[in-house]
């Protein structure tokens, strides 16, 4: 019930005026006894970066493979740019990086892209451009087998960009990258979204999707547990307050957000405060003459978000209430 509410909210905030570039309805994949993907509904709109967030084995890759026509769904339907997944028409404007980047080890990075450009009928001037974009131009003449994990991953992204696609499907593109590489990748994905491309980005890192995505669908056990905007997820971050005297601070904050939303944790208070109310809490504490030594928002780990979203309905209700 509450998951539906989350979906409704998401629909309100998404740019519903444009035709979605990607629609999935009840997409399901069963491997023997394993229900890898269970009735996934998904919509991605032009210019939107959609984060597909879930732990390993949640069904992210399987969903993406279905959207690319690599595997057949057991049930459900999907359209990609208005066409059947995997059809030449659908793939003409889709770039994809699924799971680990697959390239010909004996060919150079550039020759690998040449081969792919031939398959897709992409003009060869794109090759230099995408190599430049992922910062591989200097090593493009080296054999793929000599690349580091990060370079392989970047070549995978370059390949995904080759067709100058309207829709990008990127499956954990930061896998194997060092922190600097991850930051670069996030920057790249964000830029792609700003260029008006739609991006479906999967990840098991909450921080990662938070930083680049407009909307996030959380998938666990093959089901989309909830869909929300980044600000909604941010809203669920706790406010940690260290102040003197602590008991007085407790009273002041409880007066603003309710007693149930404040809990003492060691010498700090852990409060559920909506993002837009943080400044107000700060003002109230200060004007009450309380010494505030620390006031920070502590985002929950993916695990905590999961628990709060799947554990009890009440938590979701609270999480969602301060947005509407």
């Amino acid at each position, binding site marked *: 019930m509450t998951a539906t509410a989350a979906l409704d909210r998401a629909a309100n905030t998404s740019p519903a005026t444009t035709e979605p570039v990607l629609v999935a309805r009840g997409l399901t994949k069963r491997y023997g006894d394993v229900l890898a993907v269970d009735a996934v509904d998904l919509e991605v709109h032009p210019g939107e970066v959609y984060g597909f967030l879930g732990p390993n084995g949640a069904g992210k890759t399987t969903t993406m*493979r279905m959207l*690319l*026509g*690599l*595997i*057949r769904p057991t049930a459900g339907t999907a359209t990609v740019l208005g066409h059947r997944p*995997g*059809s*030449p028409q*659908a*793939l*003409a404007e*889709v770039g*994809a990086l*699924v*799971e*680990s*980047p*697959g*390239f*010909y*080890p*004996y*060919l150079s990075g550039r*020759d690998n892209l*040449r*081969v*792919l450009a*031939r*398959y*897709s*009928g992409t003009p060869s001037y794109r090759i230099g451009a995408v190599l430049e974009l992922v910062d591989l131009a200097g090593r493009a003449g080296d054999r793929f087998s000599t690349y580091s994990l990060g370079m392989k991953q970047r070549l995978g992204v370059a*390949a995904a960009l080759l*067709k100058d696609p309207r829709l990008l499907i990127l499956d954990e593109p930061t896998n194997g990258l060092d922190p600097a590489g991850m930051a670069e990748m996030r920057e790249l994905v964000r830029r792609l979204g700003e260029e008006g491309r739609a991006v479906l980005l999967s990840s098991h890192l909450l921080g990662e999707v938070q930083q680049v995505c407009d909307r996030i669908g959380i998938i666990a056990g093959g089901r989309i547990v909830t869909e929300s905007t980044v600000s909604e997820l941010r809203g669920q971050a706790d406010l940690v307050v260290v102040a003197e005297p602590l008991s007085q601070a407790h009273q002041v904050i409880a007066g603003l957000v309710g007693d149930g939303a404040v809990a003492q944790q060691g010498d700090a208070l852990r409060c559920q405060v909506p993002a837009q109310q943080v400044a107000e809490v700060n003002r109230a504490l200060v004007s009450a003459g309380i010494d505030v030594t620390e006031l920070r928002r502590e985002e929950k780990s993916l695990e905590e978000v999961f628990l709060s979203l799947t554990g009890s309905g009440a938590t979701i209700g609270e999480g969602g209430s301060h947005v509407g």
Partner: protein
Amino acid sequence: MLASVGAEWMKLRKRPSTWVLGGVWLAMLVFFAYVLPYLTADSDTGPEAAGALASTLPAELVGNAVAGYALFGGALALILGALSAGSEYGWGTVKTALTQGPGRLNVLGGMLAALGLTLVGMVVLTFAVSAGASAIVASIESAPYDWPPVADIVTGMAGGWLVLAMFALGGVALGTATRGTSMAIGLGLVWVFVVEGLIRASASALEFLDTVQRALPGVNGGSLTAALGARTVEEGGAPGVSTLISGWQATLVVAVLAGGFALVAGWLQRARDVV
């Protein structure tokens, strides 16, 4: 499909194993079809030695060039096909190629066409190297440069190509079915070098095995090359060459088997999930 042919052609051309296989083939050709028979004839007398020497002369160009196709050449073509199809699974490039969007059968068609082109190159090289080798033998032996008619050479090339293409398609089907190279090559070579030999050896004793052997790729390939002029095993020729089946029937069976392998590969390529 031209685009996919171009992509596959580039992969094949730049792949070291293509050149290794081609080099191994040509080295085997020169040694077993020319150097060895020549040395045998040199150190021996009698009808077999005379036959061996004759086979290396320009007049026997066609038969001698295609003689190895039914077994060794076929095995190498099978490896080539299995490597082309199977490696894509090992490297995870199946998904990369398919998501470029040409369509599954288009990608496979490109692979088959590029393999076919590569085999054309192999056949032309085989004939060129054979011609060179027999010209050398002729000059040493002061024998006449008695080249076969062009029509025979063209027929020989076409027939030889068909035999190689059948084996390469068998390799592609195996590589696709096993989603890899090692199992495909292993099974293929066991078939070519062991299973067919055992069936042939037992065929005289068991009637149904005689029927079975007439459908085998190696037996038909061997009969086709014999019809093109290769010396049979009994005449001291290459292993696998026999006149068990008439030339036309063998050609038909080879073509049907080739088509069957292509259909199997196509069906698998189209129907299966790429995981």
